[in-house]
């Protein structure tokens, strides 16, 4: 009998050692998104938050590079976070919102409508960037199933080693430094700062479909219903980049949608006189994305709008928030003057 126990013990030990080794190799091979492709780091950083947020921004790079939670707090005491991702598709935004609503209930959710022009899954690389960092749960499962392109396999999301094992031949220093630690955040509560300046000149034209894809509108409907169910006000915006183009027909379609659902819709390109963004100084890539100066201008403008329209509380003075945002502001200032 003793021999049998020894065997079972030995086998169990072998299995544990093997799975441990595979787990370690899996972590080593998975891309770290810390020094390169940092957009992949954003989804995971949300779970480090210690304070809740009255405003949640969700959308693609036109959101996580255009609004600065530091400015919103220091100017208006508005607590906010940006759950954005590279080319984050509408259903990914929906599921990220659903995931956030599990642990907090914001007053306002701001969604950038540009990604509505993509009706079906686009690229496996973007899927991995946006979804790998997500917390496991029904939201993540839903997001994966809705985003998978042809040839992708659900198991490779459950066991990242199945997807990234090839990388064992192309590891970089970054993979080893962040092997077992996630490293410090790459964003400021989801905001990715760019300090460069590259004035806008001329943007290409393109032929386009008059109507936004049917599937995107369906997902927008579901997002509106989700917000209503949680008593959250949904605000639709079109962030003020001048490229990719946001065509008039699309703008009218979203305006009609907002009207019929009683939602506020801001086309910030049209409202630019009030915002005051100058595409000669406030962009780092010829008008596609704002740099930190543009983002602060936009945050100052939109903070006032949100405070007045939705009566957001001014949390400045409350110890927990002050401590959190003070640390954030310190890091923010260093980044701004680098």
């Amino acid at each position, binding site marked *: 009998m003793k021999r049998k126990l020894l065997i079972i013990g030995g086998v169990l030990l072998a299995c544990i050692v093997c799975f441990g080794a595979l787990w370690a190799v899996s972590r080593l091979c998975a891309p770290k998104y810390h020094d390169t492709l940092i*957009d992949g780091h954003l989804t995971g950083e949300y779970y480090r938050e210690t304070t809740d947020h009255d405003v949640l921004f969700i959308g693609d790079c036109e959101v996580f590079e255009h609004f600065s939670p530091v400015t919103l707090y220091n100017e208006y005491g508005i607590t906010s976070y940006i759950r954005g991702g590279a080319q984050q598709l509408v259903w990914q935004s929906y599921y990220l919102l659903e995931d956030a609503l599990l642990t907090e209930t914001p007053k306002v959710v701001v969604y950038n409508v540009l990604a509505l022009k993509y009706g079906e899954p686009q690229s496996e690389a973007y899927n991995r960037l946006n979804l790998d960092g997500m917390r496991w749960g029904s939201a993540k499962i839903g997001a994966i199933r809705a985003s998978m392109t042809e040839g992708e396999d659900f198991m490779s999301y459950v066991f990242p080693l199945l997807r990234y094992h090839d990388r064992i031949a192309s590891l970089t220093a970054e993979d080893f430094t962040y092997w077992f630690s996630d490293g410090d955040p790459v964003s400021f509560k989801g905001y990715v700062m760019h300090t460069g300046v590259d004035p806008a*000149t001329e943007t290409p034209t393109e032929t386009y479909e008059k109507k936004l894809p049917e599937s995107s509108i369906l997902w927008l409907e579901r997002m509106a219903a989700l917000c209503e169910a949680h008593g959250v006000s949904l605000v639709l915006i079109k962030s003020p980049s001048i490229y990719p183009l946001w065509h008039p027909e699309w703008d009218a379609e979203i305006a009609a949608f907002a009207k019929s659902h009683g939602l506020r819709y801001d086309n910030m390109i049209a409202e630019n006189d009030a915002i005051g963004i100058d595409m000669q100084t406030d962009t780092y*890539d*010829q008008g596609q994305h704002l740099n930190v100066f543009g983002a602060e201008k936009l945050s100052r403008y939109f903070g006032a709008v949100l405070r007045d329209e939705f009566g957001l509380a001014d949390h400045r003075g409350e110890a927990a928030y002050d401590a959190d945002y003070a640390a954030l502001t310190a890091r923010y200032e260093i980044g701004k003057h680098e």
Partner: protein
Amino acid sequence: MKRTAILILALMLLAALGCGANGTDDPNAVFIDPNAVHGGEYGELYFESNGVRFGIYDEAEAVLSALPAYRSTFTGKSCAFESEDVSYFYAGFTIMTNEIDGTDRITGIKIDDDTVKTPQGLYIGMSAEDAAAAFPAAKEADWSYADGTALLSVTIADDVVKGIVYTPVIPED
């Protein structure tokens, strides 16, 4: 590669293998990768301006320096990645380039207005029947006509040509 002497009859096949080759190729020539991308294979789908003829996958630098100065440029940034495609704006058309295997190559030519014509005589704003008469082969291919490495896409709305663009043919292997 010297091979040992082999029993001729019994090893008929191997004997043939062993007799070595009379070198016809230069032994230290670097091998050109047949799958690599290179210009000049766009057949009749090229574009011409100021006497300069160019097409898909041509080297960008050569074409840009041959053409008169462009009006301005625009660098398209993808959301997360460093890969950049640059648009060069000219009078009536735009050239798009992308870096492929270390060299910038032309990956798109777009006709912007009716001030320029394609070698086959297509221009923005012409009627659909005139376009069909000018380039019947493209009409048959439902205005998505491929030739070599280039694909011509013509957008027609309410019987008028609205858009003309040359792009690389995406190989489906």
